[in-house]
């Protein structure tokens, strides 16, 4: 008699055959050793399965430990957040200790200026070069997040079981990493003014159509308004979001400017960081440190003690700069009265865009580079960069998978929903910047918008990981869902995306599509993760 199939034997072992069928099979077993062995093996397998399932893969919870456990999570979260904060603080102190040269200070990711610089550079580049540049900046932020991930992973590895709801956790961490709240005085109205006789001892947050400071603000001044005028003194920093900002008094700290135009007629103790349509340092204006600005037009008639770094379409310098002038962009004019204590380095498109009057003084070297687009594929550095890019993306992918396995797998899967992800992604890509601006205008304010911005860039960076992993999975069709399969898929997917990304014209579209898809999947998964699992 012919032997039974393994599945039928399995049904017998599971007690799922009808009485008749079971009897037939048992009769067969008496004569057939092969089937008997198979049935025995299947029984043993069932036993192993039952026993393995009975033992919980991790330490089993007990009813008594249940409520205590929940509390211990809260404490655990607090401890974790405190640890990350401490780590960040130590690193930031350490970075401060290093005495970074001024020119590099903007790169310090732990300082406010680091963040603002990232923001204006991005916006400027966006206007100039479109989304291709965006990925470059996303890479910078990716590096930053990599640091954060690396720092946190040691703490997190032991706790991976409870980190499935990645979104909210990440938010907590970022919330605590955001700027510490300070004592703050708020003023709001059509016309907000600090009269000459008044001294504000706290940080002042002013919102209004016109904000005018004639007195003294001992803390920082944060303003949102149409016109902002500082005629008095601000002892701290000035952070301005306005159509027009005029400083004719003095600011002893830095100016972080996001106004459409900034005019400095007065004294500034430290540097200007910002991003503006036009920046004008009047001949009475004096900048104690340097300027790092992205501006449509840059006019310098006054004095800057240290270096100036500008990304601009049009720079006019007739004042003096204590050290170097570094510019990239459209045209540069140095008039006869211009004085430069250090080097001049300019990157322009055409040599004729640089006008240096004979009378202009340049103490250091002149380095004027004309950007000629050479094929990037001929340079070894290009391949090296791509390799580093790929490696870091793989590392980030791996870390995310180790830390948030469920979330990562689900995000990868969410890419597959196609139009939903794409549509959502387009919405998020366009909508979040608006939300950032809105958040920055309302009172809750700047920390939130910075956080949102950082999350936005991180999400853009992560987008390619979900899409890459998804693409890889489609192509490889792994049988299991192990980490190994996922990472292999990611590698393949990223390789393909990278190569396709360099095809002229189509490449840009592919990249944009990839960012949208990935963003959409990520947003969708965040939404899913943040929804309570049980709502009964």
């Amino acid at each position, binding site marked *: 008699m012919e032997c039974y199939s393994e599945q039928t034997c*399995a049904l017998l072992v599971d007690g*799922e055959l009808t009485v008749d069928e079971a009897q037939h099979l048992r009769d067969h077993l008496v004569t057939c050793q092969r089937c008997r062995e*198979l049935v025995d093996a299947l029984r043993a397998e069932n036993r192993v399965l039952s026993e*393995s399932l009975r033992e919980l893969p991790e330490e*089993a919870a*007990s009813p008594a430990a249940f409520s205590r456990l929940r509390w211990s999570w809260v404490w655990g979260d607090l401890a974790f957040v405190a640890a990350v904060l401490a780590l960040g603080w130590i690193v930031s102190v350490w970075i401060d200790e290093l005495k970074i040269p001024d020119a590099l200070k903007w790169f310090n990711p732990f300082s406010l200026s680091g963040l603002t610089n990232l923001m204006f550079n991005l916006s400027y580049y966006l206007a100039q070069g479109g989304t291709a540049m965006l990925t470059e900046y996303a890479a910078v932020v990716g590096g930053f997040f990599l640091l954060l991930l690396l720092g946190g992973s040691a703490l997190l590895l032991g706790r991976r079981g409870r980190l499935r*709801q990645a979104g909210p956790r990440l938010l907590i961490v970022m919330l605590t990493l955001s700027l510490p709240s300070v004592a703050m005085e708020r003023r709001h109205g059509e016309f907000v003014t600090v009269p000459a006789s008044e001294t504000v001892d706290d940080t002042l947050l002013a919102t209004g159509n016109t904000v005018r400071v004639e007195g003294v603000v001992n803390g920082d001044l944060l303003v949102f308004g149409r016109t902002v005028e500082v005629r008095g003194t601000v002892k701290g920093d000035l952070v301005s979001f306005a159509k027009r900002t005029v400083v004719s008094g003095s600011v002893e700290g830095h100016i972080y400017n996001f106004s459409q135009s900034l005019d400095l007629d007065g004294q500034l103790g430290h540097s200007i960081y910002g991003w503006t349509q036009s920046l004008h340092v009047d001949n009475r204006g004096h900048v104690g440190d340097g300027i790092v600005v992205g501006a449509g037009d840059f006019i310098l008639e006054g004095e800057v003690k240290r270096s100036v770094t500008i990304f601009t379409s049009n720079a006019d310098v007739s004042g003096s700069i204590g050290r170097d002038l570094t510019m990239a962009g459209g045209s540069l004019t140095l008039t006869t009265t211009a004085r430069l204590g250090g080097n001049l380095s300019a990157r322009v498109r055409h040599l004729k865009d640089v006008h240096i009057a004979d009378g202009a003084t340049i103490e250091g070297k002149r380095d004027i580079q004309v950007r000629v687009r050479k094929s990037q594929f001929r340079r070894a550095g290009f391949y090296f960069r791509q390799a580093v890019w790929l490696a870091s993306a793989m590392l980030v992918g791996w870390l995310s998978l180790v830390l948030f396995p469920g979330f990562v797998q689900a995000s990868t899967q969410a890419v597959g929903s196609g139009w939903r992800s794409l549509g959502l992604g387009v919405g998020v890509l366009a909508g979040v910047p608006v939300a950032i601006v809105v958040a920055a205008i309302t009172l809750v304010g700047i920390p939130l918008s910075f956080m949102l911005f950082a999350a936005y860039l991180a999400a853009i960076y992560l987008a390619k990981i979900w899409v890459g992993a998804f693409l890889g999975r489609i192509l490889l069709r792994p049988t299991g869902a192990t980490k190994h399969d996922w990472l292999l898929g990611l590698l393949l997917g990223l390789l393909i995306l990278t190569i396709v990304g360099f095809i002229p014209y189509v490449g840009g579209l592919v990249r944009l599509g990839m960012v949208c898809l990935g963003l959409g999947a990520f947003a969708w998964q965040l939404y899913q993760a943040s929804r309570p*699992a049980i709502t009964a």
Partner: protein
Amino acid sequence: MDARRNKAKGPQPREVKDKQMEGRDLESVIERAQGHDTQALGEIHRRYFRRVFGLCRHMLDSRESAEDATSEVFLKLQRSIESYDGSIPFPRWLLRVAGNQCIDVLRRRRRGRQVIVEVEYGAAVVEATSSEPSPLGSVIRMEERAQLQAAIACLPENFRLPLVLRYYSELSYDEIGQQLGLERNHVAALIFRAKLELRRKLAHRSK
């Protein structure tokens, strides 16, 4: 020394007696619980918490959701225990309730859609080819067991759920089919394929 330890591990007469007592008074505990006796409900919680949690942990993807689901099962038990009629053993009934709760959770995550949607009709008959790894042996080392647990956890839902319902909750194929909204044949095929998948994974790992 060893002999003493072994002796200490063996079943003590008192423990056996306790177990019998537990079996007998389970009925009365359930009866009292059906009459909304909170102490009795607490007793049931104490006795079956681990088993219910274990099921939820195997069925859901995270410890958090498993704990939430477990709490929910015992919370709803106050009302649902009235419907328990004693026709099947209580633990089995309770695990069925817990299984339903987990499936509800999964279904809600999918916005009300079926938990297992992939209906491949060809799947009803699965033949193991001779090249497939043989059934997992009864003698399985500790580290292999850990690997097996990991492999189960990594199984896709449509394999994992029927497998867990069968070998943890010990439900019949029909009951599993009812819970998951599947044909009996399909359940059989999924369980069989789940095992093949596990064998394949373990064979792959031990290489």
